[in-house]
């Protein structure tokens, strides 16, 4: 356990000592700021029924932030260490392959959540500005952050896999960005009003991130969504571990 924590600390330390870490934080701050302005303008227009968090998800800002930052956060994890050779030094210590994978994932997730903190500020400011606390229902906010964590986990685990596959950070970033966009495009299908046709359509509906997020943002935590994110994250982390192990296959 202490080895795991040492590794996570190293991951975070590496991120905060790199320029990319601060660029990610700056970009999220900027977009969160624009988003705040956007929401204030919308709220000025009149009364809305939906919680603010749901408005936020429907505004596309969530996706504009999520899709590019997750590849940038994870691109370093394996690729950079392979390129500099420290990967060899790491893998010749008595540390398990899965321990390394989990630590890299956990480090990325912690950084990802830290990068989202400005969103809390945005919600707080909205509440102060509008003087309408009902906009910021605690359950909806908690649900929103849970959704954000779950979707983030899935995207970061895909990023870890991409990074483990190559020694170039650029390739890792592009690969995980493409995977992320592909998953998002599937979600863009018409939603609940038009249930999918045939098994493939139903499968796509089940994978629709948009639908999941809509639920989360209203404070509805559906166990099917939970199962979907946990299993798919575990699946990608499992693949990553296999890739890390593959150097030992004959």
């Amino acid at each position, binding site marked *: 356990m202490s*080895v795991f924590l*040492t590794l996570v600390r190293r991951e975070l*330390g590496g991120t905060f*000592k790199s320029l990319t870490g601060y660029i990610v934080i700056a970009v999220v701050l900027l977009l969160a700021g624009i988003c705040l302005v956007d929401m204030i303008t919308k709220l000025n227009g009149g009364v809305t029924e939906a919680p603010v968090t749901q408005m936020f998800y429907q505004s596309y800002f969530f996706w504009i932030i999520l899709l590019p930052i997750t590849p940038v956060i994870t691109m370093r994890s394996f690729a950079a260490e392979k390129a500099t*050779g420290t990967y060899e030094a790491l893998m*010749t*210590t*008595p540390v398990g392959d899965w321990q390394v994978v989990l630590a890299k994932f956990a480090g990325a997730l912690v950084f990802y959540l830290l990068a989202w903190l400005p969103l809390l500020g945005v919600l707080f400011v909205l509440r102060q500005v509008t003087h309408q606390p009902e906009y910021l229902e605690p359950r909806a906010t908690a649900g929103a952050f849970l959704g954000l964590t779950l979707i983030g986990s899935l995207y970061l685990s895909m990023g870890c896999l991409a990074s483990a596959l190559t020694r170039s950070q650029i390739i890792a970033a592009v690969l995980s960005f493409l995977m992320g966009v592909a998953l998002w495009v599937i979600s863009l299908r018409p939603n609940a009003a038009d249930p999918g046709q045939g098994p493939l359509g139903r499968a796509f509906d089940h994978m629709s991130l948009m639908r999941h997020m809509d639920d989360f943002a209203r404070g509805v935590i559906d166990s099917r969504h939970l199962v979907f994110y946990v299993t798919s994250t575990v699946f990608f982390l499992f693949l990553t571990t296999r890739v890390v192990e593959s150097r030992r296959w004959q």
Partner: protein
Amino acid sequence: MESVPMIEVRDLTKRYPGRTAVDGLTFSVAPGEIVGFLGPNGAGKSTTMRILASYLPATSGTARVAGFDVFHQTDEVRRRIGYMPEHNPLHLDMRVREYLKFRARLKGLGWRRSRERVDTVIEQCSLRDVERRIIGQLSKGYRQRVGLADALVHEPDLIILDEPTIGLDPHQIRAVRALIKSLAENHTVLLSTHILSEVEMVCTRVLILNQGRIIAADTAHNLERHLQLDGQVIAEIAAPANDLRETFRDLPEIERLDIEPIDGAFMRVALTPKNGHDLRPIVFEQVRTRGWTLRELTRDRHSLEDIFVHLTKGRKEDQ
């Protein structure tokens, strides 16, 4: 305990697509030895070391470290090895002390123990002055010592160093060599290099590798003697060429004689002996009795290149 060799390698082979990097290697290293891998680039030194550090699997054959199989008992092996990979990769954004502490924790040392050990290796590798500096800002000599300190930090039985002195200036090379020599008391060391003099100075035994095979294994001193490479003597003598030729031609110890004029009255005389005789006393005796002037008398030191040429030629003739 004494009977278990620190390293035992049997028929070790590593094939990459289209290339055999290591070809049926067999050797063993006893505890307390400093063994040098000597060979040109691509001879299979790094690959063998990576297999021993259980980073890469072998295609066939077995390798054991302290009695543990490097493939099936990876954890046991890794705990006993301090490995410095080729080019000494370090986290350049970390500070020296922070990095060593991080590595010590990864290698399973507890909080208090890692602190003690980091202090010890910082002292041992003379890193006290730079312990708070960022590794990326250190000179190559210091970085190399950080790599060595990392290899030592968990008190491994076996230390594997891949080209520990490459890219250093002569002063730094000396410091690193002295450090490696001082390790011999408590550790077994396997290091690779392509500098012959380094092996002579540091190692108790040499394994010469070429194209993935061991072509010679012995002490550096014995190698030179057995291979009869300590032959040719060069003398610079001020004397007429004809006199020189007549004097040396008839001596029974001399196999070959080359004379060429250099500056002024001096001639460069190259003498090749029969049966590995040392010709220097004979040459000196002749010069003294004839009253010539001698300004240089040296025995040709053979470079690694010569040894390779010699050994690889020998192999081809065998086949």
